[in-house]
């Protein structure tokens, strides 16, 4: 069973095809990492999965039922969001208590609000919770702010958490703590998690499965260990080679910036920057790179790559 799934999702902003046909499943209790460079459509896909933008084509499924956009409020109790910049995602005029209680008030959750807030803060690792109730965001460190955001999501007891770059604006030493917290939420609460990131190390750290996105499509997906140790798509190989580390293969630094989603090339969308294609392929393969429209990768648990190379 999948907790949250995208089926053939397309998201457009004007001419930009930000998400251009994606199948993706997050199984219950599973941690999936969505990786790719800036502008490839990761956040847009995440927002579509949260019902914050409506796909022009395709559907979002929650617990195997298509998302009903007229009953979004109910859906929101199941799927929650954690944003990149914890400083920005807390209203500077609300105290920690108000920020965490906000979800409870919106959904008129029965029970002792104070207790629920305290429990959520403890789960997010802010203990003793009472000490944080009346603080304002600017009185907290970055890591603590991110914990407040997480607590605000947890208080609604969601099944799925979508975290968009949850640690990229945090300090190195705090990063691990937040990631450990996310892992613990999975084991203790059975939470499913979609982590959006451009950091492969983070995926290696916590994800069961990885989906590599390029220009609006998932180009490789599969078990984290498989994809990151024996990548098949040239783009994944390039991404892996530039993870800054010591003593490894020569980095394959792709030229140019993230390509333009309003002008997606025909054939394989990675071809203009593909090192394998540039290095010269047998004529027959090269022609397939130029002409063949590659299919959308299936959402199952297998290891797939959208490339004509074996």
């Amino acid at each position, binding site marked *: 069973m999948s907790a949250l799934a995208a089926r053939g999702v397309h998201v457009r902003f004007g001419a930009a095809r930000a998400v251009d046909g994606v199948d993706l499943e997050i199984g219950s209790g599973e941690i999936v990492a969505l990786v790719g*460079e*800036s502008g490839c459509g990761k956040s847009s896909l995440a927002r579509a999965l949260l019902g914050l933008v409506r796909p022009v084509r395709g559907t979002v499924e929650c617990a195997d039922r298509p998302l009903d956009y007229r009953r979004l409020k109910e859906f929101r109790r199941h799927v929650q969001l954690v944003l990149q910049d914890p400083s920005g995602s807390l209203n500077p005029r609300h105290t920690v208590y108000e920020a965490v209680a906000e979800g409870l008030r919106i959904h008129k959750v029965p029970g002792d609000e104070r207790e629920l807030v305290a429990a959520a803060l403890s789960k997010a690792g802010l203990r003793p919770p009472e000490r944080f109730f009346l603080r304002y965001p600017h009185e907290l*460190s*970055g*890591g*603590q702010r991110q914990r407040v955001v997480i607590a605000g999501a947890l208080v609604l007891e969601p099944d799925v958490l979508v975290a968009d770059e949850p640690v990229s604006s945090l*300090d*190195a*030493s*705090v*990063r*691990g*703590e*937040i*990631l*450990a917290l996310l*892992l613990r939420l999975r084991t203790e609460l059975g939470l499913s998690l979609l982590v959006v990131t*451009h*950091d*492969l*190390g*983070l995926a*290696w*750290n*916590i994800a069961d499965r990885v989906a590599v996105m390029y220009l609006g499509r998932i180009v490789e997906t599969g078990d984290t*260990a498989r994809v*990151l*140790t024996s990548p098949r798509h040239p783009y994944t190989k*390039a*991404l*892996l080679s*530039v*993870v*800054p*580390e*010591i*003593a490894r293969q020569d*980095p394959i*630094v*792709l030229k140019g*910036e*993230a390509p333009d989603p309003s002008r997606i090339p025909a054939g394989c969308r990675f071809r203009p920057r593909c090192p394998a294609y540039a290095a010269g392929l047998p004529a027959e393969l090269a022609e397939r790179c130029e002409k063949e429209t590659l299919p959308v990768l299936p959402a199952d648990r297998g290891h797939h790559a959208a490339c004509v190379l074996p």
Partner: protein
Amino acid sequence: MSLLELRDLSVTYAGDVPAVRGVSLSVAPGEVLGVAGESGCGKSTITNAVLRLLPKSATVGGSVLLDGEDVHGMSFGRLRAVRWATASIVFQGALHSLNAVRTIGRQIAEPILLHEPKTSRKAADLRVGELLEQVGLPARRARDYPHQLSGGQRQRVMIALALACRPRLVIADEPTTALDVMVQAQVLQLLSGLVKDLGLALVLISHDLSVLGTTCDRVAVMYAGKVVEEGPASVVFDDSRHPYSGALAGAFPRVGDPRFRYAPAGLAGDPPYPGDLPAGCPFHPRCPVAFDRCSEAEVELLDVGAGRRAACLRAGEAS
């Protein structure tokens, strides 16, 4: 001889905030020194101290020697000549502060015309084109405005700007933070290339030890205004002698290393505020291997062999 030498540099901001507390470092031409450490540990303060850009209310101790000459003893005219022409800085987050209504070509030409007023307009334009090509942008982009460039391209412009007056030392403060991995790799490759081609001395500042590990010859890890570990880049990253550098290295896992699977390494607690430092080893409240003496004894940076120094009472044990 080293191009830049910090001797026991200390900087105290107004309100008794000791942001840097006795730092000694040196860089030679053609060498890349990395400085790592988390937010607020004093990295940018050092950068600013090198070119005397600190606020007037800050008190500076120790000395900063550029080519053997003390920066803090220079006359103002001499200082102006030294800024840009001997040493220049790629400021943290500066890619957001390019002037939005002037072309990047004119912005790069500005320091050239300021330092060599006799340069003709044409010669300056030529030099701008040269600089842009050097950082991997076509010369025609000189006519572009900042908003027409992506984040990575803007960072390249900042580097071109720093190279404008052919400095021999460049300090890059967090040049790749906020850029994604591929663009980060592009910028790092560019900087390494410049060091090789121009024989620059480069100080690379980052909170990401793994970035420094690949690019630098030596790294210094700072905590609470002090260097806590210094040594050849790869060994500090791989086999640190200070628990803090170990934690920093662990925060950026090695993809493919099973030790990091499902085991994000973190460090409990928050970095200390410089105005209110704990006694003894300033790291002791967060140190996973602290013992009773750590909260009392003053810890100095000591030689631990093979050109390495570490400031930890346990530095000798681990190996």
